[in-house]
């Protein structure tokens, strides 16, 4: 019996790019789908934040106060997706040659980064929606004002830019395995010691001024304050500086090939 004939294919060149919006959306959708499919990423994105929320309600006391716990866990979710997930996934994309391949398609480097940013934003939005809903189901009633809501959105946006910029700088320089280890260590260290989940005033007085300079502190303190009707501007200013530093680090440090 003879082998089946190969499928007919007209190989005559007919190059052309899809419209830029379609390319970027296609990329964002693919990255978001892969993130959602990855078990480790889901643990970071939802399981740990939701676990902390439920644990807080079980433990009770000052740790279980939802007016503090809920915005803290929302801040943690932003931190996990915009820093840890971006660093790990980009590190392996560089190592596997995904970046090298896609940078040479019509998507290009700018489209790839835009698509990655959109995918991260979509995941963060989904996290905030799920975690916020669970927190409200557990009894959280944020006393946020209109101004506080706008400041919250800007704070999350700037934190996302700052964290992603730092993540790209890390993943663009180090080997994927080193990025994986380091991103997880930094995640845990700043979760515990970066005023992300614990309010700044619960740290020893001697370290408060240093911890307060961290971008995680700006995000955590900002969301906690806005959720109870406050409207401080320093978290926003701090994150503005950190987002500039993050973008600069990514610009200087990122490499497309391994």
């Amino acid at each position, binding site marked *: 019996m003879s082998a089946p004939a190969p499928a007919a294919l007209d190989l005559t060149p007919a190059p052309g*790019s*899809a419209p830029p919006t*379609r390319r970027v959306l296609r990329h964002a959708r693919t990255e978001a789908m892969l993130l959602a499919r990855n078990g480790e990423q889901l643990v970071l994105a939802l399981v740990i934040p939701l676990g902390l929320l439920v644990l807080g309600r079980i433990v009770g006391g000052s740790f279980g106060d939802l007016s503090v716990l809920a915005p803290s866990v929302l801040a943690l979710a932003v931190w996990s997706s915009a820093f840890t997930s971006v660093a790990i996934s980009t590190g392996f994309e560089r190592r596997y040659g995904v970046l090298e*391949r896609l940078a040479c398609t019509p998507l*290009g480097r700018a489209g790839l980064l835009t698509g990655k940013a959109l995918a991260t934003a979509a995941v963060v939005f989904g996290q905030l929606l799920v975690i916020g809903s669970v927190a409200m189901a557990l009894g959280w009633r944020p006393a946020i004002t209109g101004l506080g809501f706008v400041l919250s959105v800007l704070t999350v946006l700037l934190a996302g830019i700052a964290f992603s910029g730092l993540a790209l700088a890390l993943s663009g320089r180090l080997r994927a395995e080193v990025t994986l280890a380091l991103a997880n260590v930094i995640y845990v260290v700043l979760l515990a010691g970066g005023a992300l989940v614990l309010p700044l005033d619960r740290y020893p007085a001697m370290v408060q001024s240093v911890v307060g300079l961290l971008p995680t502190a700006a995000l955590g303190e900002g969301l906690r304050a806005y959720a109870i009707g406050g409207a401080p501007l320093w978290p926003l200013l701090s994150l503005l500086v950190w987002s500039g530093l993050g973008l600069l680090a990514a610009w200087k440090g990122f490499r497309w090939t391994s």
Partner: protein
Amino acid sequence: MSTPVAALVVDRLSVTLGGRAVLDGLSLTASPGRLTAVLGPNGAGKTTLIRCCTGLLRADTGAVTVLGRPAGSAEVAARVGLMPQSTGAWSGIRADELLHYLAGLYAHPHDVDTLVRRCGITSFARTPYRRLSGGQQQAVNLAGALIGRPELVFLDEPTAGMDPHARRATWALLDELRAAGVAIVLTTHAMDEAQTLADQVYIVDAGRVTVAGTVDELTAGDRTLEDVFLAHTHGAVR
């Protein structure tokens, strides 16, 4: 008869990485409807050459012109296909998902199902990329390089890891591609592959072309291509 315009012109290209001259005044050309093979030992600079041609690396001196434009121009991105040497795909994506995604970046891509059948991917189209064998990953990567119907393709060791059946099928596909007018630049260690497929061969060693010609020119006088390769290159193990 007019000479076809070169699809690729590499002119005295030099690149230093980590203090080492990886490319050292390398020049070559590739034309539409012809397969240009770049042969060289490990570390000769083949992958660096392709990275310069796709605009991922900048040359210290010299120039690369791709389809009449400087390498890396946005205008030529859709006209060039790349099959990188490394895996080139997310570990968790399925082969057909990757090809549908890549097709979405182009205006007139190949029909994914037809390309999947033509490249022999059908039986593992729904398998995550990380679970594919080396040869299967190569088949998916080749399809990814062709999906946008390019005028020029760079294939970095396209048949490495393929079994003889897949290798012969790939050779047949490259023959069709050439007949359709596509310019093909292929790097390989496989002498039989270059001997069978190449219209023009460049042998590269230590970042420069040491000898070039057609297969007939290089193998004149009963020499094999491997004899020529060994005579014009240095091995990593001596």
